[in-house]
């Protein structure tokens, strides 16, 4: 199955959603996004980290160093309170957008 690249701006939403389950390090986030999306979405791994740093600076996620599943030091990210709110806001916006786009497409077909 061909993978599709992430639309602009949706990476933040996916990261927040992934971290809503449990704190994770960068590699696991990218793995998780791919697994959940059944390997359809491809996250350009190089662009994941700038996004994480950006979210951290905005205060939506915070980072701490922990021990990974293979006993290595790894940087774990977790959602903050404001990040949780932000996730709701972005999810809402996303839902509205997809509904709207679907409607437009549906109308155009009919």
């Amino acid at each position: 199955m061909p993978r599709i690249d992430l639309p602009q701006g949706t990476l933040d939403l996916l990261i927040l959603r992934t971290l809503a389950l449990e704190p994770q390090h960068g590699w696991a986030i990218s793995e998780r996004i791919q697994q959940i999306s059944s390997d359809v979405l491809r996250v350009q791994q190089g662009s994941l980290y700038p996004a994480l740093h950006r979210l951290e600076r905005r205060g939506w996620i915070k980072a701490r160093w922990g021990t990974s599943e293979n006993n290595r030091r790894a940087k774990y990210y977790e959602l903050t309170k404001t990040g949780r709110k932000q996730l709701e806001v972005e999810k809402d916006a996303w839902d509205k957008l997809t509904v709207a786009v679907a409607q437009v497409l549906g109308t155009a077909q009919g």
Partner: protein
Amino acid sequence: MFRDLWHRMRAVFRRKLVETELDEELQFHLERQVEKYVQGGLSKEEAWRRARMEFGGVELAKEECRDARGVNFIESVLQDVRYGVRTLGKNPGFTAVAVLTLALGVGANTAVFTVVNGVLLRPMPFPEAERLVLVSLTPRGGPFEWQPGVSDRDYLTFREQDHAFDRIASFTLQATANLTSAGDPVQIPVAYVTTDFFPTLRTNPAIGRGFLAEEEEPGRDSVVVLSNELWKERFGADPGILGKTVRLDGISRSVVGVMPPGFAFPNARVWVPLKIRVDEHNSFTRPVVGRLKPGVTPQQARAELETFAERQPLGPGESKRDRRPQIIPLKDLLVANIRPSLLVFTGAVAFVLLIACANVANLFLARAAGRGHEMALRSTLGAGRGRLVRQLLTESTLLSLAGGACGILIAFWSVPALLALAPAGKVPRMEMIRMDGWVLAYTFGISVITGIVFGLAPAFHATRRDVRETLSHAGRGVTASHERMRGALTVSEIALALVLLTGAGLLLKSFLRLRTVNPGFSPHTVLTITVDLPDSTYRTAAQMRAFHARTLAELARLPGVPASGAVNLLPLGGFLTMGTFQVEGGRRPPGFMVDKPCISPGYFRAMGIQLLRGREFTETDNETAPGVVVVSQSVARTLWTGQDPVGKRISMEDEPKPEDWLTVVGVVDDVRQRGLATGSDPAIYQPYLQISSAFFLSHMTFVVKTASRPESVAAGIRTVLRSVDKNQPISIASMDTLIAATTAELRFQARLLTAFAMVSLVLTIVGIYGVLAYSVAQRTREIGVRMALGAQGADVLGMLLRKALVLTLAGIFLGGASALALTRVLEKFLFEVKPADLSTYAAVAVILTLSALAACYVPARRGMRVDPMVALRYE
């Protein structure tokens, strides 16, 4: 907000830690990915390869992370600065030339701005000076139009009625008085001011007090306020000065105050109370300063003044349109005359800076070609284009800041030189000129802007090249667009230099023309001594005539003086009395007015004014003899065309009685009275011995023709004057100096603009040289091939000359067109030269072309000596 700041600070100050963490984080990711692939059955090498490929550029990701943290900006600027300093340090020659060029440009701008800031921009040194304005209600189109003022009559009425001003005050400009009680007699500038003057300016004397309201009344008005500088120079800063007596024009006045240091408004050294009274016949017009009430705008004040002007009764022959109500910033009283000159200089010096910018941009372009490899490498390693542009801009800004720092030094030295060049007494507010924070801020500002202006184009250019191509060519490839850009820069340089050279040429030509004007007299070896006889000592015309007669007799007896005389209004002396007269049996053409000097016998000979017909005055033309006059040639021609003027009669009275008729006894050459540039003025001379009005006798200039060395006679002249009246201040000036003073302004403008033009010419030559030398260096191989194929040195020379000529001609056409548009601003400074003067343009074009060819010399020689073998092997 705080978190954001904390993140930024952490990244700046704990840079190492943040960087290590970033490294570790990314490393962990890659290793984890490799692990996954190895578990999936890949070899270790294959796993690493795939992991890296999927990840993309690690350096790029790091860079983006730094950006994302938002700390990257400060961090990378610091990094750029460090890197820039290192790069510039590695090319000391390049750096030195660039810094020097910029220092010249920025320095010249800083110097001119220092003067502009002091003279035009800095506020008047009074509290809330922005609320001080001049009130002016002058007649439109009259001889006094340029001088803001209000007639005494209007002043008194307006002061009663106005609502816009807290206070208003009237004062005199340019009055002088003889100070006789402190050391040698000296003539000093004095301001007669109404008693509201100091309160209006809200400036009180530092010692003592200002004037009381009743001190304008006669009998109580013998008081004076001194300037701090005069108090120090003439009274040794005497702490007990208050109450002491000072003699001004022979009148004793008691000192009531000493102003704070630096207070000299309006260019005075002492202030004396002025009583405004309305006289039936004459009405003085004086400047009036007002302090606007809080909340009143100058526009509202103007509206009030307009209403006032409309309500005023009109004088005979006056119409409403004749009056011009104006509210003018106070500073304009002092600086209105010099503003146009200063603005021209500011414009000219900006051109110099632009040329410097073009030059340094060219240098940068040349260097960028050599750095193509470096740029390509950095961009492959993940540096974005914006990052590279910023790096190059940081370097150019560093350079321009260094140039600016040197420029401040240059300005520091050149401001005094600039002021020394300026005509004495023609630069107002000189005491305000200094390098203050504004000047430094200005220099900093133009340095940064300069750095960006000359750095931007080369920066984009250098980072535009195709990475792969450059890398494979090992950075030696040069694009045609690169060379086009350098050509364009050089053309604009030439055009800018041409505009400056043309401006300087036009002014220079005007100055030379003005110098060759025949003033109608011969000024060489003539000394002048001007006296102002105070009313208090010389009460009658007879007393004044006695002073003049004694002085003249004594001067005539001096050795080495072939001729001497006296005149009340010296030609080019800055005074003019134009008047009407009646012609016996004829009619004076309407509007024909004449200058009416009173002279002594011998004046024409002393001044070398040619007697064309009849005779000059003699000692016997005195008050008992019949009235006589000598007319100038243009008067004779205008009144009695084709007739002998000698024997004709005129009168200075409007309705002459029989004894008022004066007989013409001689005709002399016309003299330029007002200025060399303004043409000859018709004059009717009268013998001073027949003048009965003290007004025409109190101010007198003695002119002494000396046989050989004027300075040997000067001592004798002093002795004579001291023996006649020991209280007279004596200042001797040669007529040559006085004439030079009238052309000093034009000479100053011409010199300064020439200096700017020369700097720009040198920079332009350097620029042309740079382009050609670069072009030769780049084409070494091409030249080598051509020579190997049989081309001669002359062909190479021809190729370079063609290139130089194309650039120069393009610059000349572009510059010529701009000069035609821009030199129009010089029009009012020019004398008998049109702004579109063809010969000036031609001369400038020739100078530029020759300079361009000269700039070809070194590169051409280098090109002609290219050894084909070496050149080919080089590639």
